[in-house]
């Protein structure tokens, strides 16, 4: 069963040249990813530049302190800079993409000139929803800065809060980034990982590995979690290696139990397994929608 190109990267795998978005649904997830990204960078001798919006700079420094970073020393040596976006690149009251791109180029060069091994930039993007002039240029800007990082010892993670941005807005920003941060797996097992994700701005579960007698309980638990999310449930099978009939029946039964017109949509399931669903008579519920392998849902 084939694997599709995966755009998701765990926070600890981010490296030079990467430009990622982090779409998250809760503060703990954001803090975990941001902290990991920054502490990994500091450990590698890279410089950190964090532009806050919803978070206060004090809170961000507090996360690092809790992660045993000597924040005072890092700031003093110019290795860590946490500033509010409104006090820095938005201080003029408007967003100027060209100026910001130049700033980023300058910051990369300055970091290297100052003896750092690279630069990590994080930005919280909630300001884009508050009618700031120039904010409409943000998608274009996001596409353009990919080039600032590509080929340089630098990377960026842009934060989009799914509680602020709507699904369609998230979908737009998602596609402006070559990569996105993989969220914390709901379940990790040697043979099976189930990772929540935002795909096209909507919540999804990615099933990675094999669902069989040893791992069906993990799928059952993950589906129980997903049932509490609002709206439809998407299950992305592009990294599925194997699923048995018990696993397929679990998906069908979860779909049946949703009610309120909600559906469970299984995407990128190989043809043989779609056939199994028909043979087993699991294709009789309108709430259970199975789309073919390789078919990309409209964005």
């Amino acid at each position, binding site marked *: 069963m084939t694997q599709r190109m995966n755009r998701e990267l765990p926070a600890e795998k981010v490296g030079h040249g990467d430009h990622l978005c982090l779409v998250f649904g809760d503060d703990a997830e954001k803090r975990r990813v941001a902290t990991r990204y920054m502490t990994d960078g500091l450990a590698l001798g890279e410089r950190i530049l964090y532009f806050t919006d919803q978070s206060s700079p004090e809170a961000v420094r507090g996360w690092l302190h809790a992660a045993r970073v000597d924040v005072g020393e890092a700031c003093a040596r110019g290795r860590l800079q946490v500033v509010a976006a409104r006090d820095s690149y938005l201080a003029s009251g408007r967003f100027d993409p060209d100026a910001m791109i130049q700033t980023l180029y300058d910051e990369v060069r300055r970091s290297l000139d100052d003896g750092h091994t690279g630069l990590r930039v994080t930005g919280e993007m909630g300001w884009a929803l508050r009618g700031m002039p120039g904010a409409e240029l943000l998608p274009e800007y996001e596409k353009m800065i990919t080039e600032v990082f590509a080929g340089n010892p630098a990377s960026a993670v842009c934060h989009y809060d799914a509680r602020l941005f709507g699904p369609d807005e998230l979908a737009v920003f998602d596609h402006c980034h070559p990569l996105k941060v993989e969220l914390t797996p709901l379940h990790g097992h040697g043979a099976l990982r189930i990772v929540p994700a935002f795909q096209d701005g909507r919540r999804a579960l990615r099933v990675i590995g094999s669902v069989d007698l*040893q791992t069906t309980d993990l799928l059952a638990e993950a589906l129980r979690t997903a049932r509490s999310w609002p709206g439809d449930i998407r299950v992305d099978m592009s990294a599925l290696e194997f699923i048995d*009939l018990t696993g397929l029946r679990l998906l069908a039964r979860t779909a049946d139990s949703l009610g309120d017109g909600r559906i469970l949509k299984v995407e990128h399931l190989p043809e*043989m397994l779609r056939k199994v669903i028909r043979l*087993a008579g699991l294709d009789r519920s309108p709430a259970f929608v199975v789309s073919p392998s390789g078919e990309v849902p409209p964005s």
Partner: protein
Amino acid sequence: MSSGHDHGEPLAHHVLIYDTDEQFLAATLPFCRDGLERGEAVLAVTTPANVTLLREALGRDAERVEFASASGWYRTPGRTLAAYHRYVQDREDAYPRIRIIGEPVWNDRDAVETDEWLRYEAAINKAFAGSRAWIVCPYDTRGLPVSVVAGARCAHSDLMHGDAVLPSPHYSPPDVQGSGWERRPRPPSGASAACMEFGSDLSAVRAFAAARATELGLPAESLDRLVFSVNETASNALRHGDGRRFLTLWRDGERVVCDVTDTGGTSPPWYSGYLPPSPDQASGHGMWTVRQLCDLVEIHSLDPGTLVRLQLDARRGP
């Protein structure tokens, strides 16, 4: 009909043994006409020659009978039984009764296939018990081996002759111990057999089955079907069995054969997987699916223990 058949009764499964076109029509024509008059669904799956015969005899009524070619319908026992199940299930709400003429295909079947197709006929009695299907299976003695016709007499509860129906004195119900439907598995042939003992790690089972089946010449497009089926069968052995468990693959002529053996515990009945499971039923779905994915499936009781034999044709895809 003078059969005195009670229309409130659930399944009827008759064999029609004939050796002339007239005998075929004498039974099937009133069967169709009577069904149409009563507003019942009528399906005729038979040879092209018999389709023509019956169509012409029915005249305008032929439009209200569904016809299908037996060669397209009778591919493998598991798929055929499931297709009839879906046909009946889809019509049970709309029709008081579903009448089916189903003439199995016997030419070009070897001994292993013939044996399983007769068991399929016997399993129909169990699989459709409780449905409102009325199934008549024609057997043309002009072209069939005596052993097949004898088997058909054992697999059907009643004999149809013209418009009369008589109980078959040879009938052997599928769920009676010692009914003759349970047979000893033939031993693996040749030196090509590969065997592994397995435990709870099913990924090792899947990998072994895929690698050996490929070596034995199973085409890539059939591999997923085999691996899925082996996994289901091995899962059952882990869930229900309590002995040592083995996976054995070999090549038998044009077939790749895969035995999943469990040396302990009681065995499920030989017709497991032929009975359509209801959606909320806890078990039975796996073997129902495996019967449709594999070309032949045999379930043998080892007493103690179970041997499930999965077979796929190495010549063709699904």
